[in-house]
């Protein structure tokens, strides 16, 4: 059992994408989640998927700054995973779990709703990126995701100079934004 300080430290590590902290969270919590899912018609692969999703929920929660740990980290993760797995079972039209454990759970519905909404936006961005095609996609990814500088990009993509690359990047950006916002505004 870890102290609140230790767990808060782990969460900070998770927000910084720190391998050591994430590994510790896995070591401490995964087996409990796995046994819950296997007891309820799942396989280890399902447990890995669900756990990964829960880590992302937690990551976003911590990142947004609105998260203070009001219970054991294990309890929180367990509650999220349980909810995610029930949803997955429901989607597959399977029956509700045959085994409900007596483990303590905390309400996580709001957190998951927030996560789902965010995830949808995420999909808009991914599909918009997929639609603009090459070389636009790679160009924008190099600049915005990999944080490369314009001269580096000019060289990698074969533009004569950084200004040319910049003009091209601007054109791509406008197209991406147009597609993204068209989808985003259409969603309601």
């Amino acid at each position, binding site marked *: 059992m870890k102290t609140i300080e230790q767990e808060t430290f782990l969460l900070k590590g998770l927000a910084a*994408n720190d*391998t050591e902290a*994430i*590994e510790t969270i*896995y*070591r401490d919590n*995964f*087996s409990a989640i*796995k046994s819950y899912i296997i007891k309820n*018609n*799942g*396989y*280890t*692969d399902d*447990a*890995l998927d669900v756990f*990964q999703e829960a*880590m*992302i929920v937690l*990551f*976003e929660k911590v*990142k947004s700054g609105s998260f203070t740990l009001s219970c054991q980290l294990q309890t929180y993760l367990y509650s999220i995973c349980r909810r995610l797995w029930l949803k997955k079972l429901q989607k*597959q*039209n*399977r*029956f509700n779990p045959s085994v409900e454990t007596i483990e303590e759970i905390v309400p996580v519905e709001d957190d998951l709703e927030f996560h789902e909404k*965010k995830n949808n*936006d*995420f999909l808009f*961005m*991914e599909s918009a990126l997929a639609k603009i095609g090459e070389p636009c996609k790679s160009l924008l990814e190099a600049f*915005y*995701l990999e944080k490369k500088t314009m001269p580096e990009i000019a060289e990698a993509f074969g533009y004569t100079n950084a200004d040319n690359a910049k*003009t091209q990047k*601007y054109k791509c*950006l*406008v197209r991406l*934004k147009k597609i*993204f*916002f068209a989808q985003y505004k259409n969603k309601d």
Partner: protein
Amino acid sequence: MEENLLLDAIERYRNGQMDKHEKIFFEELKSNNPEIDEVVAEHAFFLAELERMSEQKQLRHNLNEIENKLINEGVISGSKAKGKAKIVYLWNRYRRTIAVAAAIACLVSLSTATIISKYSENKKVAVITPLVDHKLNQFEYKLNEIEHKLNDAATTTHPSSKPKFEANFRATGFLVDGKGYLITNAHVVQNAKNLVVENKKGDQFYAEQIYSNSVTDLAILKIIDTSFTKVSDLPYTFTKSGAELAEPIFTLGYPREEVVYGEGYLSAKSGYYGDTTSYQISISVNPGNSGGPVIDKNGEVIGIISSKETNADGVVFAIKSKNIYSALKEIKKDKDITIKTPTTNSLKGLDRVKQIKKLEDFVYKVKGN
């Protein structure tokens, strides 16, 4: 101000790359022009989304690496354990269950053996029949021939050079990978020298079997005809998890020359004499239905029709689709051929007629001699 300059300025402003004067100027510009302010807000939101995506990608990447590391270390024992490790894992997990089951099995078999030997005089032996149609008769050949001649005459693109093929059995198969890999039953193809598959339109392709397992009764065929073009968008997916009792199911198959639809339900989670690799389903099938897909209402393939009990009514057995995955793994291992099962399901939520419309192009007649 031109838009590209504005966007550039916004990005520099956000990243804190502006000097003091520029920053003050920019902030003034923003507060005096609601239009510009709106563009700034919109772009800031857009950039935040992009950043979020990049962060999440990195996180996922990291999570996957950690998972792999822990699996290799054995901290997470799981599906990726292979060979001995897997057996040890399964043994550890189930040894108590196995012990109890073995004890019960012992008792039951002993007691039933005594009872049977004492009381049974005329026991009935159940027989299962594979559902291959061996009765393709002369009449059907003729009909086929005429049909094909008509087809050839109607469409000049049809390769009329196809040699005449006299089949002596007919069954069903369906695509598992659009590159031309089909699934059918091992008993369908076991003695066949030549194999031909035919789609709904009547196009025929030569095929060869690349895998056959008489225990699971699964076979995988590959279309070797050059006239076959890759198809994409297989509408169904293959489920790994189990189906539930009473789930409605349906199938498409070739008990006749024409494709035939049938529907029913899942009646037991195990097959002939408690065989856990298959289901018992209730559906009307006939010789020729062998190798057809058993699909649930969401368009997921849960099994493959294989046989029916001869002296019982409406007892049909279907191999669980989980076995397909193990077959594909074996093929990968033995022949280094990667067969990808479809990942997206486009049948979900459609009504049955539309589902069948989408589906029937992917279910083939399997013939051979």
